[in-house]
């Protein structure tokens, strides 16, 4: 049963992470082109830092770091009279009430918390990439459009929400769809984060705990599980490509771009 659930886990992760990362990206891109200098610096810094470092180091790092960060915040709030340092030698110690999840919490809370951390990590990392794409897309919207809107007396905020944001999607979509394909391919990393995803199960089902000793009474079936996974991902990628192609055609409709023009001519 676990194997089937794990497919659900992967799909759920994608379903939750994609919008969250998009929101992070939108926030990051908006911050990066803000008029307020610290906010702009923050937005640009966020994009630059996450993009510069190997991804899986980030996945390994963020899960631990976020965990520590949350516990530390709760520690500061819940146990203000704790005098010892939270770093004792090589150990990180917080008071019992600040533990996340609680020591006595049922198993499913532990699993949900792990899943939540994974989603947050994915969202932070992919948010930075999405922010970069959206930032580029915002700059690609023809400047005349914005100037026209200003000439009509729209305020900065109105220009942003009514002109810039609706038009930027068509420029952002190629980058975003690329990102989506990458996100699909990133989900097996979940298993590194300790969430029981399909890779985890494919390994478990093979039976042996120690992959170094390879004498099985039966053949080694894990090859076939992984072949199945490979096909699952390939099919998923192919379907996504087809769907995104359709979306792109929809979005191009009526846009002042070459593709939009071509579509208009083809229809006429």
């Amino acid at each position: 049963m676990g194997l089937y659930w794990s497919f659900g886990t992967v799909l759920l992760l994608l379903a939750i992470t994609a919008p969250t990362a998009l929101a992070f990206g939108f926030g990051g891109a908006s911050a990066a082109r803000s008029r307020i200098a610290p906010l702009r610096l923050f937005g640009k810094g966020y994009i630059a830092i996450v993009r510069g470092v190997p991804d899986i180091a980030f996945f390994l790092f963020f899960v631990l770091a976020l965990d520590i960060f949350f516990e530390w915040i709760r520690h500061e709030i819940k146990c203000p009279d704790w005098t010892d340092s939270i770093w004792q030698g090589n150990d990180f110690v917080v008071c019992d009430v600040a533990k996340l999840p609680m020591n006595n919490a049922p198993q499913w809370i532990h699993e949900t918390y792990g899943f939540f951390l994974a989603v947050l990590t994915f969202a932070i990392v992919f948010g930075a990439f999405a922010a970069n794409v959206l930032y580029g897309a915002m700059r690609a919207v023809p400047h005349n459009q914005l100037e026209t809107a200003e000439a009509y007396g729209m305020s900065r905020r109105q220009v942003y929400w009514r002109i810039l944001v609706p038009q930027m999607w068509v420029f952002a979509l190629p980058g975003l769809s690329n990102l989506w394909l990458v996100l699909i391919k990133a989900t097996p990393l979940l298993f590194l984060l300790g969430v029981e995803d399909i890779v985890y199960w494919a390994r478990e089902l093979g039976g042996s705990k120690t992959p170094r000793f390879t004498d099985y009474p039966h053949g080694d079936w894990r090859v076939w599980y992984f072949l199945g996974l490979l096909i699952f991902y390939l099919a998923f990628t192919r379907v996504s490509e087809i769907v995104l192609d359709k979306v792109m055609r929809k979005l191009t409709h009526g846009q002042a771009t070459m593709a939009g023009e071509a579509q208009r001519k083809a229809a006429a």
Partner: protein
Amino acid sequence: MSCWETIADYGLRSLGIGERVLPREGFTLCQQFTLIGSGMLWNIYFGVLALSAGFFLATAVALGKASNNVVIRKSSAWFIFLFRGSPLFIQFFFAYFLFLALKPISPIFDPFTSAWLGALIVLFLNTAAYSGEIFYGALQSVPRGDIEAADAYGMSGWARFKRVTWPTMLRLAWPAYTNEAIFLFHATTLVYFSGFPAWQQRGDALYYANFFADKTFNPFIPYPILAFYFILLTLCIISLFGLINRRLNRHLPQEARAKMKLKLNVIR
């Protein structure tokens, strides 16, 4: 123990030379730097070999995808889709278990189950597919005038390819290929996190960084060290590829030279 002794003991630990036992407690900054740096040797080994071998297969695949022969074209396109459409992670797992399953058939497959050969093959095929796509794109955008000029000089076949098509293709593809090279090096960190076991704790940089993070429960030291090494490596790659780029573009007037634009991509 002074830092020099640590370097002497652990500098080549990842190759199995020097002290056998990894440090157990009281981890110093020097130990972390040395061991993670010694792990980098593996990252460099995988990256350099896969890249230099993959270059040739990539050229072949790119030519194959542009070929007039249906069989060659289709098989090249499928090769590229297979490796670009599925997670590298799953490819590692699949290859590892495939080699494990092949092992009982013939002792020839023995070395394939260890990382130095098995993972290298996967990385080689993977980078060939990614760079094949880049080269294919560049091949499509070789200016027609160049080919016509070659025809006018009476060049055809091999001579035309070697003197006109291929250098132009490389010149056009080079900025994107630089990114691919950087990403290949980042991807080498996945090797010991997939099926391939780190025999006698001889792992790559991320393996040791993870080792320290697990032992100290403090991700804030080993991962930044890892990031530092990778940024250093990335700078080396950029300057080396920049030199080659200069040479490829040396016949062009100053302003027409392709600028190296670094666009960092994500997980493969």
